[in-house]
Every structure is written in C-alpha cells, then in structure tokens.
C-alpha cells in the first residue's frame, strides 16, 4: 500500500515536472488593415490571445506617466459610482472588474492605498461572483495597502492577481469574460489619461493617448468573436468601433536610428534612437476625449 502511494505520487510529480516544456514557433502577424473581419478574429490561437492580453497598456503605466508629469491625484477620476452588488450579468461583472483594476493601479501608484479599501472590496465581490475570487489575494493585498512601505509587493500582487484571473478565464473557455476585463482595464486607463489631458495638456500625455491607435486593433480582435453574442456585447463592439473611428486620421510616423548600448552597474543600458511621432490635431484629441468619457460614463452607470 505504502509503495503504491509513493509510486503514484512520483508519477504525478514527473508528469507535472515535464509540463510546459514547449516551444512557440508559430508567429502571428497582426493585420494592418483598419477593419478586423470577424472570421479573422475567430481564428486567433490561444497564444495570440495571450499575447494580446499582455499588449494592452497597463493602467500602472498611465498612472506612472501622470505622476512623472506632477499631475496631482484626483479621487473624482475613479469609477466611484460602481456598486458591485448591483451588477447583474457576467458581462457587467467582468467589465467592472477591469475598470476597478485600473482604478486600483492608479491608487497604488499614487500610494493612496488607504482609500483603496472600497475598491478592493468591490473587486473581491465581482471576482467571487464570476468564480475567480480564489486568484485575488484580498487579505494580503489589503494588508499591504495598509503598509505603505510595501508598494513593490502590492503592485506585484495586484497585477499578478489580475494576470492569473485572465489566464484562468481563457484556459477555461470563458474568453469573453477575459476580453471584457481587459477592455475595462484599457478603457479606464484611457479615461484617466483623457480627463487629465484636458487640465494638463502635456505633449507626452497627448502622444500617449494618440499612440493607443497601435493597440486598438488588438482590443477589437479580442471582442470581435463575441460581438453577436447578445446586445450588451454588440453595443460594446460598436462603442469600441466608435473610438477607433476617432483615431482613423491620426498618423504615427517613425524616424530611423540604431540603438546605443553601454554597461552600467552590472547590467546593460540600451537607448533607442529610433523614434515614433504622433500627428494629432487638437480637434482629433478633443474627439477622443469626448467619446471616451461618453462611453465610459455610460458603462459605469448602475442598472
């Protein structure tokens, strides 16, 4: 009996030890065209979808940019009106989970961790409701939030929780919820940037908003397979298409250059001399600001 237990356990261990030893040889080429046919999106491999989910701008990056520009924290930017108890469908829950994740990133970067308890509580409720609460380490994140010296761990754990939820949803044929969560994160980050640029019209910030054109196709590809799922999805697809339409005439150009490398403190520092430049008029920026606010405000309304 003892021998059997040991034998079976070792076999299981060896099976796990050998998992994921694989190569990723298939390359995926993002389509250049403005429109993404549904059939194209449906052909996306799980690896390509995983890539896209990693591509979306992190709200932490937007919040960090704002902090670098000395933009003060503003509680009013947060989606405070979201009531986790009033979200009735999985669509609403997953989308709001994404929106609140972006808000959590903003709070963390500005070290307003004392104010994040409400957001954390809502995140836990939404995550539990779509059966992914086990990946959100609420107690540890809450503890770290109360101890400001652990910002590094807090950022790691918060982002890691979302990453695990995303992976779990995709691995368990619930890709539509993963797509909604990612879109929620992106939309809230975009909202934050576009609200701030109205008051602080900094070139770096407006460029970052214009550069979102680069990943808009990816967002649409994520949601496209579900656009005919039900009216909620159809409406969201239309909203994203409307945002994309506002980006149509924005031009991103590039100048060539070779990277410059040097050693420093045991590591390598590589400075890119190639540059990207955004061509966007004030009217185009205003159009993006307006459409983003209108869609985001509509989505956070409690039904």
């Amino acid at each position, binding site marked *: 009996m*003892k021998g059997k237990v040991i034998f079976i356990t070792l076999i299981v261990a060896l099976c796990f030890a050998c998992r994921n030893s694989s190569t990723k040889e298939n390359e995926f080429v993002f389509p250049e065209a403005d429109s993404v046919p549904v059939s194209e999106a449906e052909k996306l491999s799980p690896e390509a979808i995983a890539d896209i989910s*990693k591509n979306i701008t*992190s709200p932490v990056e937007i919040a960090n940019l704002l902090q670098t520009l000395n933009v003060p924290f503003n509680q009013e930017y947060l989606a405070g009106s979201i009531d986790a108890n009033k979200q009735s469908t999985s669509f609403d829950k997953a989308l709001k989970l994404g929106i609140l994740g972006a808000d959590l990133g903003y709070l963390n970067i500005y070290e307003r961790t004392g104010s994040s308890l409400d957001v954390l509580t809502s995140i836990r409720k939404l995550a539990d409701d779509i059966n992914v609460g086990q990946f959100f380490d609420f107690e540890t994140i809450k503890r770290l939030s109360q101890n400001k010296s652990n910002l590094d761990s807090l950022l790691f754990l918060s982002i890691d929780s979302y990453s695990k939820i995303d992976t779990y949803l995709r691995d368990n044929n619930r890709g539509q919820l993963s797509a909604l969560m990612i879109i929620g994160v992106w939309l809230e980050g975009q909202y934050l940037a576009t609200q701030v640029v109205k008051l602080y019209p900094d070139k770096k910030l407006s460029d970052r908003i214009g550069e979102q054109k*680069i990943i808009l196709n990816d967002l649409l590809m994520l949601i496209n397979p579900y656009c005919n799922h039900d009216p909620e999805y159809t409406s969201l697809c239309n909203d994203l298409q409307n945002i994309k339409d506002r980006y149509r005439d924005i031009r991103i150009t590039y100048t060539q250059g070779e990277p410059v490398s040097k050693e420093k403190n045991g590591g390598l520092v590589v400075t890119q001399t190639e540059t990207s430049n955004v061509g966007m008029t004030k009217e185009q920026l205003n159009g993006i600001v307006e459409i983003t606010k209108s869609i985001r405000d509509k989505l956070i309304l409690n039904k």
Partner: protein
Amino acid sequence: MNKFLLTLTVLLTAGIMSYGQVTDDLRSECALSAGSNAKFLKDFRIELGKSANNKTVLRYKASISLWKNTKYRFSLCNSQGSGGKLILTIKDNSNRTVLSSYDTNGKTYPFVDFVCNKSGIYNLYFDFYDGHQGAGVGVVSMIR
C-alpha cells in the same frame, strides 16, 4: 509510521515539482530584485526543454507593447537547476533586433534597461545560453 512516510513523500514530490520550474517565489523575488525605483508591470514564465536533435534552439516568444518616453527594466532570473542562463532578445515589428542580454563577447547580463523612444508592439524571445534546457522568469518593470 504511515503518516511519516506519506509526509516524506509529499515533501519529496513538492521538491521534485518545483525543481527546474518557475515558482511564485521565484517570480516575486525576481520582481523585487528589479530595485526600489522599479515598478512591476508584468512577467513571463519560461520553461524550455532540450531540443530532440540538439541543433534546434527552443525559444519562448511573446509580445509586449512598449511606450515612448519610458525606461523599462527587463530582469532575468533562473530557476534552480536550469542548464544555462536565461537570455532575452527583443525585436521590433520589422524584425530588427533592438536589444539582447547576450553580447557578442559571450557575456550575459542579468538585467537590461531599455530607454524606449518608439511606441509599438515588440517581440520578446527568451532562450537559455547555448540552447540548454531550463526554467526562469523575465520581469518587466518601469524605472524612473
């Protein structure tokens, strides 16, 4: 006695399972090793075997969006038992190499700072020195 044997077996099993694999501890250690001025963005778990014919180098590929006016740090950490050091190469969307943590003199760097001036989607390629099998983690952070 039975309990002792069972506990021993479970402990051994856990040890075997974590050896040569990416654990959450390794991921958080690697993220924190980026330094106090670094803010964690994402990580990649790399687990590569040895190729069957010893000629093909197995490689993990992923993509990431990187943004202008941002300084990124790519930290590379090896799991216990890895055959070689983890190497990162980044290429842009024209397939031009932007950086590599392995230089032509054979030196490998544990981290690479990248001052990004061109926003776009980049391809990350992870492999182990000399095509060895191994496990590790690549962490992407922002630094001031």
